[in-house]
């Protein structure tokens, strides 16, 4: 392939931006996530849960102080790229992001988490076939958003192909997801919910919902959140008032015979960061 020098500069700039976004996301939680955690910690009445919140807040401060990742499960990077009209959609974009992930794995450092799905052989650098997942949307500016996703919470995520007549069953499906999950996803959690679209869109929407501001909810989101918190699972499944810090919903229209509902479970450490590519 012919490489235009301007293109390879762009690829390198993208690598730098990806590495910086990952460092930011792994070490420091965004303000909306911190606000949700602090509010829940202050409101918690259960004594064990209060101590769990105290540990979480101390951990966040220590990660910043020591400049180390918040959690040893540094996750797998999920990447959202916005592409302005003057930047061509090219394989070099993906190569730049992959290079950024490789660099971040050494420089932060990250735990190498990416393996072959069947042989379980570790690729060693957090990239692999189809990894990282990169979602591209048009935008005004060239930005990289990373959402490193840990397995504890990802593994308890669910998708349901509900019947069109079952819209009223959605709160039950969401609460049931956390009932099945218990303490495994490191609650208090954030829940990203995708409603509508197709089987695949619903899952993508659920994850994108975690990019929305997590310290506000509309009435429907609050209803879903209340249904989860009524379970009393609490931080780490040890009991308490807060099981879900927030529920965020993204919707798409769907087939008249379908109602896909996906829940992407996210531990309290909702790590994400956006960096504009300097070009």
């Amino acid at each position, binding site marked *: 392939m012919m490489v235009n020098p301007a293109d390879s500069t762009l690829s390198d700039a993208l690598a730098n931006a990806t590495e910086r976004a990952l460092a930011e996301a792994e070490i420091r939680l965004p303000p909306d996530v911190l606000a949700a955690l602090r509010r829940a910690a202050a409101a918690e009445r259960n004594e*064990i849960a209060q*101590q*769990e919140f105290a*540990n*979480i807040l*101390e*951990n*966040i401060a*220590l*990660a910043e102080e*020591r400049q*180390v*990742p*918040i*959690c*040893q*499960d*540094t996750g797998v990077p999920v990447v959202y790229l916005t592409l302005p009209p003057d930047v061509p959609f090219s394989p070099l974009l993906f190569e730049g992001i992959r290079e950024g992930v490789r660099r971040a794995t050494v420089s932060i*450092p*990250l*735990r*190498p*988490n990416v393996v072959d799905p069947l042989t379980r052989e*570790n690729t060693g650098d957090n990239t692999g076939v189809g990894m990282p997942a990169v979602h591209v949307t048009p935008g005004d500016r060239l930005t990289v958003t990373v959402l490193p996703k*840990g397995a*504890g919470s990802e*593994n308890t995520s669910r998708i349901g192909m509900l019947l069109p007549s079952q819209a009223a069953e959605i*709160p*039950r499906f969401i*609460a*049931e997801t956390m*009932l099945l999950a*218990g*303490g*495994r996803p*490191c609650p208090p959690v954030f829940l990203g919910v995708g409603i509508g679209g197709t089987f695949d869109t619903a899952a993508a929407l659920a994850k994108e919902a975690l990019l929305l501001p997590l310290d506000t909810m509309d009435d429907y989101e609050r209803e879903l959140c209340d*249904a989860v918190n*009524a*379970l*009393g*699972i*609490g*931080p*780490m*499944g*040890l*009991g308490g008032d807060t099981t879900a810090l927030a529920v965020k919903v993204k919707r798409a229209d769907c087939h008249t015979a379908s109602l896909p509902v996906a829940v992407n479970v996210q*531990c*309290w*450490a909702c790590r994400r960061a956006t960096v504009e590519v300097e070009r």
Partner: protein
Amino acid sequence: MIDLATPLGDEVLSLRAGDRVTLSGTIYTARDEAHLRMIAEGIPFDPKGAAVYHCGPVVQGDRLVVAGPTTSARMNALTGFLIDAGVRALIGKGGMGREVVEQLRGRAVYLALTGGCAALAAARMNLKGVYFEDLGMAEAVWVIEADHLPLTVGIDSHGGDIFEAVREKAKTQFYQRFNIK
């Protein structure tokens, strides 16, 4: 708050689910692969009074960067031999299955560390050595000197299981709220 130190003895038998404790002394990390290797080849450390930590840390050179607990339930079916060999405490997150609750009875406890608190854990730990390094960073058995790890007794040696109690309550709430008979 009760301060515990390894090697652990009968003092763990008086603990009750919900108690807050700290743990100091040598602990050993082990995840899925390490358990399988130990079952096949034997335990590389002295298991008497030992504490096994479900953790796959981030290690750089001889520095323990971060080291929070992993999901313990993955090791449900792989744990019995450790308790039989004299291990007195398991440390992890999320609790363990019914079979482990029975295996712990009269012998050992399960201690919960707050999930995701990997910087907090590492701030109270020093790396001392490693076994099975060929299993890779996350799956190797790391030897760690711990200093006052803040823990909650999740499962005691009398069958008390705080996770199970919370789960049962959650189930009742769920059935009531959604009118499930």
